[in-house]
């Protein structure tokens, strides 16, 4: 399938991130069109598109907006811009290159759900993205798209751009809310769900950056335009951020349903002399797939049927130079480092799985350890407080399924003896050793 640049259409222009650059291509026309309609019709429009959340869970966006009780009490829109998933790199480039699509989307979404305050929670480690979005919000305010009586519609809105302090857990929506309220970022007990009692105990819609950025073009072009892309259950297009051992890592905006093989072609294929070993459709939190799965359409439903998840839709590609044992160990180290500590299985499980995996990495694993790791993963999965634990329980079982031999080999030989640690790097062959 060909690429469908919408959000990324003008990223090659030097001022794509500015108000001038954005409006040159019809920016904020969608806002004006939206304000001419009723909020209900915007919600209905988004429902009609079948737009699903681009943050990983794929929840229907229009339905989420429809949950907000319209009883006159305060409620909020919060944009989850805490992109921290290993391998995911789509929201941050979007905020850098096209922040006004996000801002315009926020204004339309708030109009639709009748929120008067919106918050954009940006990962603290990316101050450049924070600055771009903050500038875009300021420009929007100066242009009269924010503040009171926006474009004479009587609709008031302000946007707070908030920088997190750098914690993966704050990408979990309820932990994000706690963090935004100034508390320690830990997930909240649900129910109540954020749609009932979220930020400051008020009903809150939490959407991913890409999801919201899709809204202006939907308003401008309509639901049937959006639905011409993708599949029945996964309509629309998506930012696929392909990373790893490909010729041209980058963001490829294509319809949902594009296969991984096509994405690989867009990315110029594997790097010179390399063969695909395994790949992950959407970040480290989804089970890995193999070359056998390259022709799967990248949709929520097809990837799930193959035992993985579309996730953030940011495929990571690994070639034969990579040790699965080592990759899994790195991921678990990440989850161990990022576990918030609230619940027992995630706090203890990530710590002790990592402990055992590092023994494998040193070639000191044992055969019983293989089952122990399976047990530990099973003891986390479905029992942790939030999805972080489930994510941490994901890499090992999938790796064991496809690459058991490598773990068995790591009971005898240190991984670095079988796999040159420099070989997977971009500086491989440059005499780094």
């Amino acid at each position, binding site marked *: 399938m060909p690429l469908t640049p919408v959000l990324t259409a003008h990223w090659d222009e030097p001022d794509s991130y500015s108000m001038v650059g954005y409006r040159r291509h019809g920016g904020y026309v969608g806002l004006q069109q939206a304000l001419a309609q009723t909020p209900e019709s915007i919600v209905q429009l988004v429902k009609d598109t079948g737009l699903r959340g681009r943050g990983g869970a794929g929840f229907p966006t229009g339905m989420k907006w429809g949950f907000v009780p319209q009883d006159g009490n305060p409620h909020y829109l919060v944009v989850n811009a805490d992109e921290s998933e290993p391998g995911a790199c789509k929201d941050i480039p979007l905020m850098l290159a096209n922040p006004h699509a996000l801002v315009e989307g926020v204004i339309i979404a708030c109009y639709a759900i009748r929120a008067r305050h919106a918050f954009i929670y940006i990962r603290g480690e990316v101050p450049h993205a924070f600055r771009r979005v903050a500038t875009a919000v300021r420009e929007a305010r100066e242009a009269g798209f924010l503040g009171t009586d926006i474009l004479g519609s009587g609709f008031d809105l302000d946007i707070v751009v908030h920088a997190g302090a750098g*914690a993966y*857990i704050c990408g979990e929506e309820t932990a994000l809310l706690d963090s935004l309220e100034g508390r*320690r970022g830990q997930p909240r*007990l649900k129910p109540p769900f954020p749609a009932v009692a979220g930020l400051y105990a008020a009903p809150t819609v939490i959407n991913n950056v890409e999801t919201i950025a899709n809204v202006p073009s939907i308003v401008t072009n309509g639901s049937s335009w959006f639905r011409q892309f993708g599949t029945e259950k996964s309509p629309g297009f998506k930012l696929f951020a392909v990373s790893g051992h490909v010729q041209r890592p980058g963001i490829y905006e294509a319809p949902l349903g594009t296969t991984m093989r096509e994405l690989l072609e867009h990315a110029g294929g594997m790097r010179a002399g390399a063969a695909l070993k395994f790949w992950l459709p959407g970040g480290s939190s989804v089970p890995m797939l193999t070359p056998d799965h390259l022709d799967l359409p990248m949709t929520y439903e097809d990837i799930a049927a193959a035992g993985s998840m579309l996730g953030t839709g940011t495929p990571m590609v690994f070639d034969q130079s990579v040790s699965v044992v080592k990759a899994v160990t790195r991921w678990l180290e990440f989850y*161990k*480092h*990022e*576990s*918030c*500590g*609230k*619940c*027992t*299985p995630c*706090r*203890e*499980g*990530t*710590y*002790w799985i990592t*402990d*055992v995996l590092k023994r494998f990495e040193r070639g000191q694993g044992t055969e019983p350890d293989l089952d*122990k790791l399976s*047990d530990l993963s*099973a*003891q986390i999965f*479905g*029992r*942790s*407080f939030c999805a972080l634990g489930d994510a941490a329980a994901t890499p090992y079982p999938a790796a064991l399924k496809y690459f058991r031999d490598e773990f068995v080999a790591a009971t005898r030989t240190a991984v670095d003896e079988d796999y040159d640690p420099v070989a997977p790097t971009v500086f491989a062959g440059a005499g780094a050793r």
Partner: protein
Amino acid sequence: MTVTSSTPLGLPAEPPIDLVTVTVDDIDVSVPKGTLIIRAAELVGIEIPRFCDHPLLEPVAACRQCLVEIEGQGKPQPSCAVSVADGMRVRTQLTSSMADEAQRGIMEFLLINHPLDCPICDKGGECPLQNQAMSNGRGETRFHGPKRTFVKPVAISAQVLLDRERCVSCARCTRFAEQIAGDPFIELLERGSNQQVGIGPDVPFNSYFSGNTIQICPVGALTSARYRFRSRPFDLVSVPTMCEHCASGCALRTDYRRTTVMRRQAWDDPSVNEEWNCDKGRFAFPYLTRDRITRPLVRVDGELRPVSWPEALGIAAAGLSAAAGRVGVLPGGRLTYEDALAYAQFAKGVLGTDDVDFRARPASVEETEFLAAQVAGAPLGPTYADLEAAPFVLLAGLEPEDESPIVFLRLRKAVRRSRQLVASIAPYASYGLTKLSGLLVPTAPGAEAAALTGLLGSTGESDTVSARISAGLSEPGAVILVGERLATSPGALRAVVDLARATGAALGWIPRRAGERGAVEAGLLPGLLPGGRDLSDVADRAEVAAVWGVPLAALPAQPGRDLAGLVEAILGHRGEPDPEVVAPVGALVVGGIEPVDVADPAGLRAALDAVGFVVSLETRHSEVTDRADVVLPAAVVTEKAGTYLDWEGRSREFGAVFRDSLALPDGRVLAMLADALDQPVGRGDVASARAIGARLGVRPRESMADAAIEATTETTTQLSETTTVSAAGFQAARLQASNESARSESARSEPARSESGLLESGLLGPGPGQALLATWRELLDLGVMQEGEPHLAATARPAVARVSAATASEVGLAEGALLAVSTDAGFITLPVRFEEMPDRVVWLPTHSAGCTPADTLGVGSGALVRLTRGSAT
């Protein structure tokens, strides 16, 4: 004690409970909607293992130990956080492999890193983790790598120590601190496997309730400096007891080994202290064995010498006989009800004196009246349950967190759970009031009566504080709570009674000491007999005389003097001498009283020195025994059985911890003394005292409150000895006595007092550099029953002087600078702290380290003091 005589608080009937039916392990159970699965399982006898769950804390679902299967759901759910739904089918570890495997997995996770130091851990033997590891855990570990270790222990306060590697991050302690106590000084810090309980830099966990976290810790992570490494649970004998430290009435468990109390814990009593107590009740017990008097002592050539019981009793009896008809009795406020009854019988039946006052604190004739009319003989209530249900509570001269900590916890619960509104008549918004989100009526000491009266007619702007309070007081179930310091504010208690009557609010009196309510019921006040009877009423006297087995004439017929009156009589009239009014005092019988606690410590000391003969019943050496002619040793609370009446009037009966102790309770000592006086009263043991108490009962009395109100407006009628006295007449007599006392009070006033008298009349306010003294006691202070517990003392709030910024600027002081508060008698220098409070008012703690105004300044609440810059020396 309700002022309205109608139905209890007039609350609407309980709404019908909405029941849902669920199935737990194939057993049907109907429970109220909203019940958590774990509670529903308990009801059918199924115990689901748990760590973070606590019935009095909000669910957190962090430990994941209580995972169960809910049919139709793909993954196990935390039973501590999921409410039942009608038709829900729950399977626990007993019938579900999903639940069982999940629980075993969690248990393995909890144990991998847990140190195997159970043999030296305080919790070993009573440890939920240890117990559940035995019942649900695997026997052998599968992990042999190095465990995470931490430096240990960390003192999160002087009293509470933390061993981080034992912690299972259940967050019970942090949730208790935040939700129950309102002192979020501990919090989980760091993340992942580094997560740990911690405190902020230089902000220790100095909560009055910190000890509860040790008790609810499901592992040995939190231990107390007092108990750590002292004992094994299985070496202890546990006895249910009642707390002697205040009138809250906490049920406790006292654990002892051989002859030593090792620790005390809160015991479960949902109607009173739920499962909590304060740190004073928990840790302040070393005093029980400190400096004890174990043998009778008699003063010979100025020295106290040990003598035999018969010799000591003989000398005491001789001294009291010599002063027959001129003996005063000061029993103190810490007696059990049984001992208080014994004191009443000894004083009024044996010695025939009505010069009896249990109040070892600033008091007044107005308070005597109030207690006789509103408290003595009143039925139970308002109760803790009434407090919890009340939509509005007015605190009049009461700081619950300092003076009755469990009342504070109950109010905080109601504020959090049912949005109760609390308001306080006080000079500034104390930390406790802040934690109750309470409203403040800023009131200078002495102006309480005006403030209370001002609430009556407040109908102005609906959002003013007084209008909100007026509205609150009129709501069904509203309660007014009165504290001890209102006694010293002229007219305040009368104003409270008026306010309660006018609004229909219930009225509760919350004394500080555990024995005060019992002493009121026993009649240890001038003019009062047991069971709320009136000494001036011949029928009442006859009833009591019959039970005591003495002739009617043996009982005094005229109201006697209170402590201040006795001191005045002993020291002689300082104004115009009037021997007709002031009967001489020849001897004093004194119980547990510290002179520093009364309004005029120097006066009491001088009176003890001056009076001809002093018999002291004491447990330990004190300023009174220093001045006593005969000292008779008495039992402490662990050595006797008895009953405290808490502030509600609830009976808090307890047995002796050390049942074979040879120490004698006050009642036994007084009975022996009565024998020595040849006026036997029986054995004087607890059983006899209870029998006498039962026979005495309570005088049936109608509508005391009405009588009190009428009496304040009616003209005084002459009291006749032989006519039957109406309730109104009873009050009128009190009023007359009070007027007389007021006269004599003004006559004996010190210069500062007369200045404050002028203030009240509006002729003179404090000038620049002057202020009115506001003061009350903090929970942790220099009280003798806190002696010997340095860890506890270190968590006390450091003494500060509080003034308004404007007042401080008059003296030229910045916040934190030293302020000297002085009278002609002396000065106190403390760091100054600014509060929103009336100008030219200064607050000092009553009895804290470096600050004992009664002793140092010679004055109490409402007095005029000078403010100057302090210097460090």
